[in-house]
């Protein structure tokens, strides 16, 4: 199978599995979900290495959001 297509299928399956799993655990923090999506995106990206039509802006956006979430968490810990 085309690895570009496989990447999207794997990513879709991981996202579809993450949401009910975390919801079943009672997770109510949106940043936890987004962090998981980011992690899954980069794992799939590293394993399948799909080709992109242009620079992978989505990866940079997810990375920026992830670092922002981590930054806020660190600030929360330091402030308490």
């Amino acid at each position: 199978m085309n690895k570009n297509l496989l990447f999207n299928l794997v990513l879709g399956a991981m996202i579809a599995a993450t949401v009910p799993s975390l919801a079943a655990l009672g997770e109510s923090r949106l940043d936890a979900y987004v962090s998981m999506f980011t992690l899954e995106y980069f794992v799939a990206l590293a394993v399948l290495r799909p080709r992109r039509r242009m620079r992978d802006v989505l990866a940079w956006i997810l990375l920026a959001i992830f670092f922002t979430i981590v930054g806020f968490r660190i600030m929360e810990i330091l402030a308490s």
Partner: protein
Amino acid sequence: MEKLHLFGAGLLSFSIPFTAVSLLILENIPLTALGIGLIILAASILLTPTRSVPPQAVRAMLESSILSLEEILEEFEISKRGYYVRAPDGRVYLYVPLREDAGPPSCREEPVGLVHRESGVEYLVLVPPAAELVKSPEVSGTGFEPALTYVLIDLLEAADSLEVVTDGFITVKLRNVKSHVSAGRFKAVFGSLEASIAACIAASLLGPTRVAEELEEGDDKTIILEVLGG
């Protein structure tokens, strides 16, 4: 737009309002997360190329192969039109008569070497740029027009559209041809790149073929192929 990208755009246009409604009206975190997940997936689909190799790259590779064939033709000083003949291995070869034109060879076996001798007639044997393309299942498993549309329009994007008329000869009308390689001897022997591809497919599916004529009107092109029978 390709179907996959259309699906991605549709998914994105659904998931953005879905996320907003889930967060602001329903105030449901798992649904909001699902919406964000769908946005990520839709963006990923839109970033995915539908073809591994862009059509321009395939066309450029075929065009560059023309230049090396042009050098060979220059070296042998050949300018006679050749015959496209399918060998038993499924590959199409071009047989160019070296002296008098005695029609296409019968070719019961794969050619060995650069010169093929048959009944006292010598042919220069060359491999056309599309020789391997015609072995693909998308070409060999269909009719002439769908195969030609697949290669020239879908795969190479060599023209905007094509039309095939069969009346003894095969007439292929191409609209807005994009490939313009200037290689005089190649054109005299093989025909233009589009004609060579069309002749290769015709030879593979219908029998020995010759490019009878080519007419150009601006960016449009008419190719007339002569199928000489098996």
